[in-house]
């Protein structure tokens, strides 16, 4: 029987995919299905949450030259 399930397809690098899986393990119910290395199917209403979490995780590793300036 043919099934069509509604969701949002996410296309990203494998590294980002790993991060999303990590987010999902902390607050389950985001990922519906892992499709391949670069594609995931996630809940429609969780897209914004994923984006925000990703931004938080990624901005941890960024160097900002102006932070040094303001400290001086």
């Amino acid at each position, binding site marked *: 029987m043919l099934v069509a399930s509604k969701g949002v397809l996410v296309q990203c690098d494998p590294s980002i995919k790993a991060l999303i899986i990590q987010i999902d393990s902390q607050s389950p119910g985001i990922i519906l299905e892992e*499709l391949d290395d670069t594609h995931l199917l996630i809940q429609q209403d969780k897209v914004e949450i994923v984006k925000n979490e990703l931004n938080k995780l990624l901005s941890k590793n960024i160097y900002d030259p102006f932070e040094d300036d303001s400290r001086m």
Partner: protein
Amino acid sequence: MSSNLFKTTVNEYLESLPKTVQSKLYEAPATCLSIYRLLSPMAKFYIMSMIFNEKPVNLRDLNKWCKPSSRKLEYEALKRLKALHLVEYDNKGSHIRLHSNFRKNFRDCLTGTQKPNAFGSISLTNDKHKVDIKFLDKFASQKWENILHFMVGTESTTTPSKSVLSLLQLGGLMENKNGLSITNSGFQFLLQDVNAQIWTLLLQYLNLTQDLNMDPVDVLNFIFILGSLELGKSYSVSSLSETQRSMLADLRDYGLVYQRSDTSGRFYPTRLATTLTSDSAGLKTPSMAVEQALGEEAEETAQERNIQESIIIETNFKVYAYTNSPLEIAILNLFVHLRTRFANMVCGQITRESIRNALYNGITADQIIKFLDSHAHPQMKLLAKERLDKKIEFDTSNNINTAGGAPQSKNENVISQHKLEIIPPNVLDQIKLWQLELDRIQTFEGYLFKDLANQQEYDILSNYASELGVLIWSDKVKKKFFVTKDGMSQVADFANRKLKR
């Protein structure tokens, strides 16, 4: 790119109108012509093929007009035409025909048999106070610049009229917090080209007119007629309807038309108006026209030339702008971390944060790059030209190609492969990288098809979806594929038909 942006918004507005309003619109030949101009080439082709055909066209024949590989274009063109109700299906859904009013009026346009005043009536009497094109250009750019300057809060600008102010607020371009101030979307608005800006305001104006009990059909017709008037000719007011006459005053405030006084019996469309619906790139674009108008002024004073071309970008991301125009400084402030300001220049630095701020506000990397490119200092351009010449010379003398790609034995294309790089390449790449970094994930709403019975079923369905251009992802081994939200109903219909057999 921005001109595409505006076209979609005008088209979206037209599509959102109820069918009865659309049908009324098609009664005016000028509107038919303007709407036709706004369509995609494929949609134009369909209209042209059907316009002199009295009988409805069989859908099966229609499908043969384009190659299977271009199904996507066909699907999009027909979708547009259907949304505008330009095409109608018969009861069985097997034949297709053009909207009868549209067909008749558009045909009249093409063969020149429309009513004499369909495109406005030219004033026959001589104007005692005749104005020339140069004057009109100046008038239009003055009015329009005034609005833009007011938005960024340039001192010494006169406040635009009340109707303009309410439009700016309604459109969310400015907001009232102890006096008017510009919003984020207002800044985006500033970066668009003039044509897009005018359409944004006109669409707001249309929304406003509905509250004022003005007939939107009348208003739209007049806007479209303006788009087909001739620059430098005067047109008589008397042939306009009551609604259209009351619009004249507002349009004068935007610089779209020139009228010597309220009671004057004639009006002149300006370049801003006559280029509203022209889309061919060969013609002079309105932004070019206005820039040219500015250029003429620039020759008069050296100061104003600086406003046009004043930005220097170094490879260390430092930006120097020789300008004292608040408009330009405000725009620069969108994506540059400005640090010092002098009487005739500002300097600042492009940083990851400053670019990200701009990107958050919806400004794209391409817009930033285009802005920097077009406002680069003449010295930067000179330098870039010299570098390019050197590269080409080096290549030709050594008979190699350093422009990238595999070395070629033929050096015919060498010159075309090098591009003029005004902005330092490392800065350019970095800005693009920052944008990419922001959207590390791409999301698509839609449906995942799975659990297909066999390979053949998968092949049929996924091929159909990719022909329509709605297939985003597919996996042959797992027999799953993903289609967009828009394409879902079509693919589902197709699946039902195919799988029942």
